[in-house]
């Protein structure tokens, strides 16, 4: 015998009150990524062939670290939201989709933390 009431089982299954949040954050992160990605491509191009010392000098500037961390946060947030939509379209059955989605979010979170830690280490060691 199940101890849950019908209302208890129904709650949280719909999109009530937060249905647009995923869509909205995908757009907010996309808007943030336009200048950040352009800046990053320009930076990488201007550092082509640069050695370790030049890389450290670039990464050691506060403005670089600030923009890099912003890029990392926006990228992995946006990427996690984006992959969720792709799984929702193609991956069945439901439990496999949920496993894929959770795995992606955990991996992207770990990637983001590793990147942010590295950026801070470069920044504070400068």
């Amino acid at each position, binding site marked *: 015998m199940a101890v849950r009431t019908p209302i208890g089982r129904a709650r949280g299954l719909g999109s009530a009150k937060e249905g647009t949040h995923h869509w909205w954050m995908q*757009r907010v992160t*996309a*808007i943030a*990524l*336009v200048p950040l*990605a*352009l800046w990053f*491509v*320009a930076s*990488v*191009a*201007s*550092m*082509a*062939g640069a*050695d*370790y010392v030049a*890389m*450290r000098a670039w*990464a050691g500037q506060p403005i670089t670290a600030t923009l*890099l961390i912003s890029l990392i946060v926006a*990228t*992995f947030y946006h*990427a996690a939201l*984006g*992959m969720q939509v*792709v799984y929702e379209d193609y991956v069945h059955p439901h439990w496999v989709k949920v496993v894929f989605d959770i795995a992606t979010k955990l991996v*992207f979170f770990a*990637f983001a933390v*590793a*990147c942010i*830690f*590295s*950026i801070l*280490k*470069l920044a504070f060691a400068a």
Partner: protein
Amino acid sequence: MVARERPLSPHLQVYRPQITSVLSIVHRLTGVALCVGTLLLVWWLVAAAAGPDAFEAAQGFIGSIFGRLILFGWSWALLYHLCNGVRHLVWDAGYGFELDTLTRSGWLTLVVSIGLTLIAWIAGYAMMGG
């Protein structure tokens, strides 16, 4: 019970590819490719923080012919997804849905993304002194 034969939607095999539909699936493909490409970004940053040897190894891979090919594809994927992403944002604001506008913005996206990629690479090679 006999299952009724129904046509399945969207029947991709019988649709003639069009600029709108092709760019749409390419947006998704580049989005997924960029997710894989973040591995390179993570490696590069972590290696830089780890020290000169690790950074040399990462730079060595990125600088190889294979690495450059990946980086070239990655830069185009990013710039294409960026340009088409802006196209998406314009749609989200409610503009650009006329059929001829859709076709024109599609070709524009393609041309601008290729143009920006070439500019970035020409600038990169100029930095390295040819």
